[in-house]
Protein backbone atom coordinates (compact mmCIF):
# COMPACT_ATOMS: atom_id res chain seq x y z
CA UNK A 1 0.00 0.00 0.00
CA UNK A 2 1.15 3.51 -0.77
CA UNK A 3 2.52 5.35 2.24
CA UNK A 4 4.06 8.69 3.00
CA UNK A 5 7.45 8.13 4.64
CA UNK A 6 8.08 9.54 8.09
CA UNK A 7 11.77 10.25 8.75
CA UNK A 8 13.32 10.71 12.14
CA UNK A 9 15.94 13.42 12.68
CA UNK A 10 17.03 13.47 16.30
CA UNK A 11 14.08 14.54 18.36
CA UNK A 12 12.02 15.51 15.37
CA UNK A 13 9.96 13.74 12.77
CA UNK A 14 10.05 14.85 9.18
CA UNK A 15 7.09 14.25 6.87
CA UNK A 16 7.56 15.22 3.25
CA UNK A 17 4.51 14.97 1.08
CA UNK A 18 5.81 14.45 -2.45
CA UNK A 19 2.76 12.97 -4.12
CA UNK A 20 -0.78 14.15 -4.64
CA UNK A 21 -2.60 13.57 -1.38
CA UNK A 22 -5.72 11.52 -1.73
CA UNK A 23 -8.09 10.82 1.10
CA UNK A 24 -6.90 7.33 2.04
CA UNK A 25 -3.27 8.45 2.00
CA UNK A 26 -4.08 11.26 4.41
CA UNK A 27 -5.88 8.91 6.79
CA UNK A 28 -2.97 6.46 6.72
CA UNK A 29 -0.54 9.29 7.40
CA UNK A 30 -2.57 10.36 10.39
CA UNK A 31 -2.44 6.83 11.86
CA UNK A 32 1.24 6.31 11.08
CA UNK A 33 2.26 9.67 12.49
CA UNK A 34 0.41 9.33 15.78
CA UNK A 35 1.89 5.86 16.20
CA UNK A 36 5.43 7.09 15.44
CA UNK A 37 5.14 10.05 17.80
CA UNK A 38 4.15 7.78 20.66
CA UNK A 39 6.87 5.22 19.83
CA UNK A 40 9.74 7.71 19.46
CA UNK A 41 8.42 10.33 21.90
CA UNK A 42 9.33 12.98 19.33
CA UNK A 43 9.46 16.61 20.41
CA UNK A 44 8.39 18.06 17.11
CA UNK A 45 6.94 17.28 13.69
CA UNK A 46 7.78 19.10 10.50
CA UNK A 47 5.38 18.65 7.61
CA UNK A 48 6.73 19.77 4.25
CA UNK A 49 3.98 20.34 1.69
CA UNK A 50 6.03 22.25 -0.88
CA UNK A 51 5.29 19.62 -3.54
CA UNK A 52 1.57 19.74 -2.89
CA UNK A 53 -0.08 21.94 -5.49
CA UNK A 54 -3.69 20.95 -5.04
CA UNK A 55 -5.85 20.68 -1.95
CA UNK A 56 -9.51 20.17 -1.20
CA UNK A 57 -11.39 20.80 2.00
CA UNK A 58 -10.82 17.24 3.20
CA UNK A 59 -7.04 17.43 2.87
CA UNK A 60 -7.11 20.87 4.46
CA UNK A 61 -8.98 19.44 7.41
CA UNK A 62 -6.58 16.50 7.62
CA UNK A 63 -3.59 18.85 7.80
CA UNK A 64 -5.30 20.72 10.61
CA UNK A 65 -6.10 17.47 12.42
CA UNK A 66 -2.59 16.05 12.06
CA UNK A 67 -1.09 19.15 13.65
CA UNK A 68 -3.81 19.07 16.30
CA UNK A 69 -3.10 15.47 17.29
CA UNK A 70 0.67 16.08 17.36
CA UNK A 71 0.14 18.94 19.74
CA UNK A 72 -1.95 16.78 22.04
CA UNK A 73 0.86 14.21 22.05
CA UNK A 74 3.23 17.01 23.10
CA UNK A 75 5.02 17.43 19.78
CA UNK A 76 5.25 20.89 18.19
CA UNK A 77 4.09 20.92 14.58
CA UNK A 78 5.29 23.24 11.86
CA UNK A 79 3.82 23.27 8.40
CA UNK A 80 6.32 24.43 5.79
CA UNK A 81 6.47 25.33 2.12
CA UNK A 82 2.84 25.93 1.31
CA UNK A 83 2.41 27.02 -2.30
CA UNK A 84 0.60 30.32 -3.00
CA UNK A 85 -2.20 28.55 -4.88
CA UNK A 86 -2.74 26.19 -1.97
CA UNK A 87 -2.80 29.05 0.53
CA UNK A 88 -5.34 30.95 -1.57
CA UNK A 89 -7.51 27.85 -1.95
CA UNK A 90 -7.51 27.14 1.78
CA UNK A 91 -8.41 30.75 2.56
CA UNK A 92 -11.21 30.73 0.00
CA UNK A 93 -12.49 27.49 1.53
CA UNK A 94 -12.54 29.29 4.86
CA UNK A 95 -9.91 27.00 6.37
CA UNK A 96 -7.49 29.31 8.10
CA UNK A 97 -5.87 26.52 10.15
CA UNK A 98 -5.82 28.45 13.42
CA UNK A 99 -3.14 27.32 15.81
CA UNK A 100 -0.97 25.73 13.14
CA UNK A 101 2.57 27.13 13.00
CA UNK A 102 3.90 27.77 9.54
CA UNK A 103 7.27 28.55 8.00
CA UNK A 104 8.47 29.41 4.51
CA UNK A 105 10.90 26.51 4.03
CA UNK A 106 12.34 23.46 5.79
CA UNK A 107 15.35 25.31 7.14
CA UNK A 108 13.28 28.00 8.81
CA UNK A 109 10.79 25.38 9.95
CA UNK A 110 13.51 23.43 11.72
CA UNK A 111 14.78 26.60 13.38
CA UNK A 112 11.29 27.42 14.61
CA UNK A 113 10.78 23.85 15.80
CA UNK A 114 14.04 23.88 17.80
CA UNK A 115 13.17 27.20 19.41
CA UNK A 116 9.73 25.99 20.38
CA UNK A 117 10.65 22.49 21.49
CA UNK A 118 13.64 23.43 23.63
CA UNK A 119 12.21 26.55 25.17
CA UNK A 120 9.69 24.56 27.12
Amino acid at each position, binding site marked *: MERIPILQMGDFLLVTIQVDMHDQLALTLQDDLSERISRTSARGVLIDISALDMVDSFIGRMIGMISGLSRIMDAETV*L*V*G*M*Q*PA*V*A*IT*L*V*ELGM*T*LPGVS*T*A*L*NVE*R*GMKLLRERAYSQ
Partner: protein
Amino acid sequence: MASLQQTTVNCVKRSEAQLSASWLADLEASGATRNLKAEDIAQQTSDFLRLLTSVLEKGGSLSINAAEWDEVRQFLEKLSHQRALVGQDSQQTANFIFALKGPLFTLLQQEYAGEPALLAEQLWEISQTLDALGMHTIRTFQKSREAVIKRQQEELLELSTPVVKLWDGVLALPMIGTLDSQRTQVVMESLLQRIVDTGSEIAIIDITGVPTVDTLVAQHLLKTVTAIRLMGADCIISGVRPQIAQTIVHLGLDLQGVVTKANLADALALALRRLGLTVAKAAV
Protein backbone atom coordinates in the same frame (compact mmCIF):
# COMPACT_ATOMS: atom_id res chain seq x y z
CA MET B 1 -39.27 45.82 -50.35
CA ALA B 2 -39.04 48.06 -53.34
CA SER B 3 -35.55 48.83 -54.50
CA LEU B 4 -34.06 52.09 -55.66
CA GLN B 5 -35.01 53.42 -59.07
CA GLN B 6 -32.24 53.59 -61.65
CA THR B 7 -32.95 57.32 -61.91
CA THR B 8 -32.05 57.77 -58.26
CA VAL B 9 -28.79 55.89 -58.61
CA ASN B 10 -27.85 57.85 -61.73
CA CYS B 11 -28.77 61.09 -60.06
CA VAL B 12 -26.57 60.32 -57.05
CA LYS B 13 -23.71 59.29 -59.28
CA ARG B 14 -24.00 62.36 -61.47
CA SER B 15 -23.91 64.79 -58.58
CA GLU B 16 -21.33 63.00 -56.47
CA ALA B 17 -19.03 66.03 -56.28
CA GLN B 18 -21.85 68.42 -55.44
CA LEU B 19 -23.20 66.02 -52.78
CA SER B 20 -19.78 65.67 -51.26
CA ALA B 21 -19.36 69.44 -51.03
CA SER B 22 -22.70 70.14 -49.37
CA TRP B 23 -22.30 67.11 -47.07
CA LEU B 24 -18.94 68.50 -45.96
CA ALA B 25 -20.49 71.90 -45.32
CA ASP B 26 -23.27 70.31 -43.24
CA LEU B 27 -20.74 68.31 -41.25
CA GLU B 28 -18.75 71.43 -40.46
CA ALA B 29 -21.88 73.34 -39.50
CA SER B 30 -22.97 70.61 -37.08
CA GLY B 31 -19.57 70.68 -35.38
CA ALA B 32 -18.90 67.02 -36.07
CA THR B 33 -15.51 67.79 -37.57
CA ARG B 34 -13.89 69.25 -34.47
CA ASN B 35 -10.48 67.76 -33.57
CA LEU B 36 -10.25 66.28 -37.04
CA LYS B 37 -8.16 67.38 -40.00
CA ALA B 38 -10.18 69.00 -42.80
CA GLU B 39 -8.41 67.05 -45.55
CA ASP B 40 -9.10 63.78 -43.73
CA ILE B 41 -12.80 64.55 -43.60
CA ALA B 42 -12.88 65.51 -47.27
CA GLN B 43 -11.10 62.29 -48.14
CA GLN B 44 -13.48 60.25 -46.02
CA THR B 45 -16.65 61.82 -47.43
CA SER B 46 -15.59 61.31 -51.04
CA ASP B 47 -14.39 57.76 -50.32
CA PHE B 48 -17.68 56.90 -48.68
CA LEU B 49 -19.74 58.38 -51.53
CA ARG B 50 -17.66 56.48 -54.07
CA LEU B 51 -18.20 53.21 -52.18
CA LEU B 52 -21.90 53.94 -51.74
CA THR B 53 -22.56 54.71 -55.41
CA SER B 54 -20.61 51.67 -56.55
CA VAL B 55 -22.79 49.45 -54.35
CA LEU B 56 -26.00 51.19 -55.46
CA GLU B 57 -24.98 50.85 -59.10
CA LYS B 58 -24.78 47.09 -58.76
CA GLY B 59 -28.46 47.29 -57.87
CA GLY B 60 -28.30 44.52 -55.31
CA SER B 61 -29.94 44.24 -51.91
CA LEU B 62 -30.41 47.35 -49.79
CA SER B 63 -29.93 45.36 -46.60
CA ILE B 64 -26.51 46.44 -45.34
CA ASN B 65 -25.71 42.98 -44.00
CA ALA B 66 -25.50 41.65 -47.53
CA ALA B 67 -22.14 40.69 -49.00
CA GLU B 68 -22.00 43.60 -51.47
CA TRP B 69 -21.98 46.05 -48.56
CA ASP B 70 -18.85 44.49 -47.04
CA GLU B 71 -16.56 47.25 -48.23
CA VAL B 72 -18.85 50.01 -46.99
CA ARG B 73 -19.16 48.34 -43.61
CA GLN B 74 -15.43 47.87 -43.31
CA PHE B 75 -14.86 51.50 -44.25
CA LEU B 76 -17.28 52.64 -41.53
CA GLU B 77 -15.75 50.29 -38.96
CA LYS B 78 -12.31 51.73 -39.63
CA LEU B 79 -13.71 55.24 -39.47
CA SER B 80 -15.52 54.80 -36.16
CA HIS B 81 -12.50 53.05 -34.70
CA GLN B 82 -10.37 56.09 -35.60
CA ARG B 83 -12.95 58.44 -34.12
CA ALA B 84 -13.03 56.46 -30.88
CA LEU B 85 -9.26 56.72 -30.56
CA VAL B 86 -9.30 60.46 -31.28
CA GLY B 87 -11.84 60.86 -28.47
CA GLN B 88 -14.94 61.92 -30.38
CA ASP B 89 -18.28 61.00 -28.86
CA SER B 90 -20.86 58.68 -30.41
CA GLN B 91 -23.10 61.53 -31.58
CA GLN B 92 -20.35 63.20 -33.57
CA THR B 93 -19.42 59.88 -35.12
CA ALA B 94 -22.99 58.98 -36.06
CA ASN B 95 -23.52 62.48 -37.47
CA PHE B 96 -20.99 61.64 -40.14
CA ILE B 97 -23.60 59.42 -41.80
CA PHE B 98 -26.75 61.26 -40.76
CA ALA B 99 -25.50 64.57 -42.18
CA LEU B 100 -25.56 63.01 -45.63
CA LYS B 101 -29.35 62.80 -45.50
CA GLY B 102 -29.93 66.53 -45.94
CA PRO B 103 -28.01 67.07 -49.17
CA LEU B 104 -29.21 63.76 -50.59
CA PHE B 105 -32.87 64.51 -49.94
CA THR B 106 -32.58 67.95 -51.45
CA LEU B 107 -31.06 66.39 -54.54
CA LEU B 108 -33.82 63.82 -54.87
CA GLN B 109 -36.46 66.46 -54.33
CA GLN B 110 -35.18 68.32 -57.38
CA GLU B 111 -34.98 65.11 -59.40
CA TYR B 112 -38.51 63.89 -58.62
CA ALA B 113 -40.13 67.33 -58.55
CA GLY B 114 -43.24 66.16 -60.40
CA GLU B 115 -43.71 62.74 -58.80
CA PRO B 116 -44.39 63.04 -55.06
CA ALA B 117 -45.33 59.34 -54.59
CA LEU B 118 -42.13 58.11 -56.19
CA LEU B 119 -40.13 60.70 -54.24
CA ALA B 120 -41.56 59.49 -50.93
CA GLU B 121 -40.79 55.87 -51.76
CA GLN B 122 -37.23 56.62 -52.80
CA LEU B 123 -36.62 58.81 -49.76
CA TRP B 124 -37.87 56.05 -47.49
CA GLU B 125 -35.52 53.51 -49.05
CA ILE B 126 -32.49 55.77 -48.86
CA SER B 127 -33.37 56.86 -45.36
CA GLN B 128 -33.62 53.28 -44.12
CA THR B 129 -30.29 52.33 -45.63
CA LEU B 130 -28.53 55.38 -44.21
CA ASP B 131 -30.06 54.77 -40.77
CA ALA B 132 -28.80 51.21 -40.81
CA LEU B 133 -25.33 52.44 -41.78
CA GLY B 134 -25.43 55.05 -39.03
CA MET B 135 -26.41 52.46 -36.44
CA HIS B 136 -23.63 50.21 -37.64
CA THR B 137 -21.18 53.06 -37.16
CA ILE B 138 -22.37 53.67 -33.61
CA ARG B 139 -22.20 49.99 -32.79
CA THR B 140 -18.61 49.62 -33.94
CA PHE B 141 -17.76 52.93 -32.29
CA GLN B 142 -18.99 51.58 -28.98
CA LYS B 143 -17.13 48.33 -29.47
CA SER B 144 -13.89 50.24 -30.07
CA ARG B 145 -14.51 52.34 -26.98
CA GLU B 146 -15.19 49.26 -24.89
CA ALA B 147 -11.97 47.69 -26.15
CA VAL B 148 -10.07 50.83 -25.12
CA ILE B 149 -11.68 50.81 -21.68
CA LYS B 150 -10.95 47.12 -21.18
CA ARG B 151 -7.32 47.57 -22.14
CA GLN B 152 -6.96 50.49 -19.74
CA GLN B 153 -8.54 48.48 -16.93
CA GLU B 154 -6.09 45.66 -17.47
CA GLU B 155 -3.17 48.07 -17.54
CA LEU B 156 -4.39 49.70 -14.35
CA LEU B 157 -4.67 46.32 -12.69
CA GLU B 158 -1.09 45.48 -13.54
CA LEU B 159 0.26 48.90 -12.68
CA SER B 160 -1.43 49.05 -9.33
CA THR B 161 0.08 45.94 -7.80
CA PRO B 162 3.83 46.40 -7.57
CA VAL B 163 5.55 44.30 -4.90
CA VAL B 164 8.69 46.08 -3.73
CA LYS B 165 11.57 44.78 -1.69
CA LEU B 166 12.24 47.07 1.25
CA TRP B 167 14.99 45.04 2.86
CA ASP B 168 16.45 41.59 2.70
CA GLY B 169 13.49 39.53 3.86
CA VAL B 170 11.00 42.39 3.88
CA LEU B 171 8.52 42.91 1.05
CA ALA B 172 6.10 45.80 0.77
CA LEU B 173 2.95 46.18 -1.28
CA PRO B 174 1.69 49.75 -1.60
CA MET B 175 -1.99 49.41 -2.49
CA ILE B 176 -3.57 52.18 -4.52
CA GLY B 177 -7.23 52.45 -5.37
CA THR B 178 -10.31 50.57 -4.32
CA LEU B 179 -9.93 46.93 -3.39
CA ASP B 180 -12.42 44.65 -5.09
CA SER B 181 -12.44 40.87 -5.32
CA GLN B 182 -10.64 40.75 -8.65
CA ARG B 183 -7.87 43.09 -7.54
CA THR B 184 -7.46 41.32 -4.23
CA GLN B 185 -6.97 38.10 -6.14
CA VAL B 186 -4.26 39.61 -8.35
CA VAL B 187 -2.58 41.31 -5.41
CA MET B 188 -2.68 38.17 -3.31
CA GLU B 189 -1.25 36.01 -6.06
CA SER B 190 1.61 38.35 -6.95
CA LEU B 191 2.52 38.98 -3.31
CA LEU B 192 2.45 35.28 -2.35
CA GLN B 193 4.50 34.38 -5.39
CA ARG B 194 7.09 37.01 -4.52
CA ILE B 195 7.24 35.70 -0.95
CA VAL B 196 8.06 32.24 -2.29
CA ASP B 197 10.57 33.57 -4.82
CA THR B 198 12.47 35.76 -2.40
CA GLY B 199 11.96 33.76 0.77
CA SER B 200 10.91 36.90 2.60
CA GLU B 201 9.66 36.46 6.14
CA ILE B 202 7.77 39.70 6.47
CA ALA B 203 5.30 41.33 4.12
CA ILE B 204 3.99 44.85 4.66
CA ILE B 205 0.71 45.84 3.03
CA ASP B 206 0.44 49.61 2.88
CA ILE B 207 -3.15 50.84 2.53
CA THR B 208 -2.43 54.58 2.47
CA GLY B 209 -3.74 54.72 -1.10
CA VAL B 210 -6.97 52.86 -0.41
CA PRO B 211 -9.68 55.52 -0.27
CA THR B 212 -12.24 53.66 1.84
CA VAL B 213 -12.35 50.51 3.89
CA ASP B 214 -15.69 48.78 4.22
CA THR B 215 -16.55 45.30 5.45
CA LEU B 216 -15.79 43.76 2.07
CA VAL B 217 -12.37 45.41 1.77
CA ALA B 218 -11.55 44.38 5.34
CA GLN B 219 -12.54 40.84 4.51
CA HIS B 220 -10.27 40.86 1.45
CA LEU B 221 -7.42 42.17 3.57
CA LEU B 222 -7.97 39.48 6.18
CA LYS B 223 -7.94 36.80 3.49
CA THR B 224 -4.61 38.06 2.19
CA VAL B 225 -3.16 38.20 5.68
CA THR B 226 -4.34 34.66 6.41
CA ALA B 227 -2.90 33.32 3.17
CA ILE B 228 0.44 34.94 3.98
CA ARG B 229 0.40 33.40 7.45
CA LEU B 230 -0.41 29.96 6.00
CA MET B 231 2.66 30.23 3.81
CA GLY B 232 4.77 30.84 6.87
CA ALA B 233 5.45 34.56 6.59
CA ASP B 234 4.27 37.45 8.75
CA CYS B 235 2.12 40.31 7.59
CA ILE B 236 1.95 43.88 8.81
CA ILE B 237 -0.70 46.30 7.61
CA SER B 238 0.46 49.91 7.51
CA GLY B 239 -0.93 53.25 6.47
CA VAL B 240 -4.13 53.08 8.53
CA ARG B 241 -5.34 56.68 8.36
CA PRO B 242 -7.38 58.16 11.22
CA GLN B 243 -10.62 58.13 9.17
CA ILE B 244 -10.05 54.52 8.19
CA ALA B 245 -9.33 53.53 11.78
CA GLN B 246 -12.60 55.21 12.78
CA THR B 247 -14.52 53.43 10.04
CA ILE B 248 -13.08 50.07 11.06
CA VAL B 249 -14.06 50.62 14.69
CA HIS B 250 -17.52 51.93 13.80
CA LEU B 251 -18.20 48.97 11.55
CA GLY B 252 -17.20 46.70 14.40
CA LEU B 253 -14.65 44.89 12.26
CA ASP B 254 -12.40 42.48 14.05
CA LEU B 255 -8.94 42.41 12.52
CA GLN B 256 -8.14 39.19 14.40
CA GLY B 257 -4.69 39.83 15.73
CA VAL B 258 -3.41 41.47 12.55
CA VAL B 259 -0.54 43.80 13.30
CA THR B 260 -1.40 47.30 12.11
CA LYS B 261 0.79 50.39 12.02
CA ALA B 262 0.00 54.00 11.28
CA ASN B 263 2.62 54.41 8.60
CA LEU B 264 5.11 52.52 6.50
CA ALA B 265 8.11 53.73 8.50
CA ASP B 266 6.74 52.22 11.71
CA ALA B 267 6.02 48.98 9.92
CA LEU B 268 9.55 48.84 8.53
CA ALA B 269 10.99 49.57 11.98
CA LEU B 270 8.97 46.68 13.41
CA ALA B 271 10.05 44.38 10.59
CA LEU B 272 13.72 45.23 11.17
CA ARG B 273 13.31 44.62 14.88
CA ARG B 274 11.78 41.22 14.22
CA LEU B 275 14.65 40.34 11.94
CA GLY B 276 17.03 41.33 14.74
CA LEU B 277 18.43 44.32 12.87
CA THR B 278 19.03 47.80 14.24
CA VAL B 279 19.48 51.07 12.46
CA ALA B 280 22.15 53.24 14.06
CA LYS B 281 23.42 56.70 13.31
CA ALA B 282 26.94 56.63 11.84
CA ALA B 283 29.63 58.01 14.08
CA VAL B 284 30.92 61.24 12.61
